């Protein structure tokens, strides 16, 4: 109840992982850990979709949707029922 943060877009394909550990380094919320030279998601709900892991994974093992749509654009869309348009804010 009253928790919208249980799901997010982070997906790890362990097959592609080379065990470089960079995702563990860059993640500011300790989402990953390495076991047996493979990355593993240990705290999935901690992910804030910043995109750091995906951008720095040279193996392309991580996908996450980051940085699209800002709060006021989403608020407008939710109020009017219209499509969400991107805006220039942070």
């Amino acid at each position, binding site marked *: *109840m*009253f*928790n*919208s*943060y*249980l*799901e*997010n*877009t982070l997906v790890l394909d362990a097959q592609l992982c080379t065990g470089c550990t*960079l995702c563990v*380094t*860059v*993640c*500011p*919320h*300790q989402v990953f850990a390495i076991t047996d030279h493979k990355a593993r998601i240990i705290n999935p709900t*901690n*992910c*804030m*979709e*910043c*995109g*750091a892991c995906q*951008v*720095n994974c*040279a193996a392309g093992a991580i996908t996450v*949707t*980051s*940085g*699209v*749509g*800002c*709060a*006021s654009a*989403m*608020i407008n869309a*939710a*109020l009017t029922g219209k499509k969400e348009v991107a805006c220039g*804010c*942070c």
Partner: protein
Amino acid sequence: MTRVFHLAANTAVMATTSKMTSTNYWDHFVARMGVRRGDHRVTPGLYKLGSPSTDSPVFVTANYSLSFDALRTSLRGLNAYILVLDTKGVNVWCAAGKRTFGTRELIRRIKAVNLNNVVSHRRLILPQLGAPGIAAHEIKNQTGFLVEYGPVRAADLPEYLTNHRATPEMRLVKFPLHDRFVLIPVELTAIWLPGLIAIGLGYIIGNLPYALAVLTVILGGTTFFPILLPWLPSKDFSTKGAFLGLVAALPFVFSVFLQHADWSWYHQAGQMLGYLLAMPSSIAYISLNFTGSTTFTSRTGVRKEIFAYIRPMAVSFAIGLVLLLVFAFVK
């Protein structure tokens, strides 16, 4: 920070120190107040701190003065180079999100200052929070420089530099009281004018109680919410805000009940319900907007929250406002 001399064609190395001047402190104060945002810039390019040699480390940061100053003051006593990217005066974290603290800009800047000729090694130390904008492997491929992600906070750099290892603690982003506190003046600067107008209107329509109710909503949303954030019940910002708003509305509800025993029952009930509907929804709304300033809410979650609560919020606020307006006049 002002002395500029030329090293080679195309490269100007600027000089900086680890000292904070009164001008720097004033600049920080103004930035913290949320005034002239985007005006707190450092000239992008390469800086030398102390008297660096070709072996000295190279640190990369944004051209937001608070980011640059945090870095150079943390490197006190060190001989180093600082490469400042042009992030349009935005801090590392937000700029990385916008990709202005980004792969392309870093590559461009490395080439523009001829970094290969300035240092003999091929290592760059970046703040961890710049990682969303930087593809380390791309930098390596295109410039030969190896990106090393330092700690989240510049203050941890001295400890980090002893062995170039960050403790898990140094890698974690937290949102402590201090960080939540510094958001308050920015929020207040942003809304003081409409806020004062709303308080004035409240006073005209419903005297002191209405004016106080508006003031309570403004302070509740911009000041109490960020301070109390971790302790408010539930995970969603909207429900946290609504809870805070409910608590804030109770004194107004009781004062109607206790101080205006002479009013008709519907007059009392109307105003009480008005407070109970308008105050929690407006504080919840301000709180929801706060998700943009935090460092742990995902877009997916924020979107879910917005689509779940924004309409109930709007309806509750509208009904509450109408009740408060009507029962300011109807006795």
